[in-house]
């Protein structure tokens, strides 16, 4: 099964990458942009999708600083 894992900085933790992108967009003339956050995308084929949460907890994300979202059959 093809799966997709979205990893985001936890809310409340300073996200300087998101801030930098948020500042860059108006400089290019794109107005009305706010709350920009930059995370990571991991796509993978897995035989046993039930293992995905453990994969996220142990390697793909650091639960202390990141939230993850698993999208099955991506």
């Amino acid at each position: 099964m093809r799966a997709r894992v979205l990893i985001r900085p936890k809310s409340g933790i300073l996200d300087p990458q998101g801030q930098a992108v948020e500042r860059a967009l108006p400089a290019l003339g794109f107005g009305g942009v706010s709350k920009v956050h930059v995370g990571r995308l991991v796509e993978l084929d897995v035989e046993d999708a039930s293992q995905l949460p453990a994969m996220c907890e142990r390697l793909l994300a650091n639960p202390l600083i990141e939230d993850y979202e698993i999208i099955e059959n991506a």
Partner: protein
Amino acid sequence: MKFGVIRFPGTCDDVDAQLAAARVGEAELLWHRDRDLKDVDAVIVPGGFSYGDYLRTGAIARFAPIMESVIEFAHSGGLVLGICNGFQILCECGLLPGALLVNDHLKFVFRQVQLEVVDRDTPFTRNCPPKLSIPVKHTTGRYYSPEPVQVTLRYAPGQNPNGSQDDIAGVVNNAGNVFGLMPHPEHAVDALTGSTDGLTIFESIRAAVGERVRVA
């Protein structure tokens, strides 16, 4: 006493760490795929870019075979020092609390920083003066922990190079035998490069190991 310095693919400060350790004792290289710690008295996880910093800094290195032995060594009270990428690895493998995030200004920072030694009652800081001048060089050094931690080193007022929580530059675990810091003491051991303050951390470890041997 004998220090062991780990080399992962992408480690780049292992040689400086060995040279610094060799000023106070013996220093031996430990290979990431080995499990044998070669009877060292203290382990140094040095700086660099282990596994290319892929995924997250330190995320892959923690699963190297040698790290299983290091975790076991730490759990049995062995002294472990993690510098920069080594600090990131020790946080990722759970030997130290917290995590290191990208610098608040997003830039690589490389400069001498002034540090305050806030806890001199550790095996790593017992011989340190109250203030140290040691260089930092990193992009991912912003320490963060949602839980209270045992702070050992802080950046002096106005010196914080990365936006770390409470100006934290180094922490120890609850047992006091695992120490991680972002500044590089191994780059501050010769007057030629501006400071010998880093040597006091290696001397502290030697003194602590010497005392343990005498007690045993």
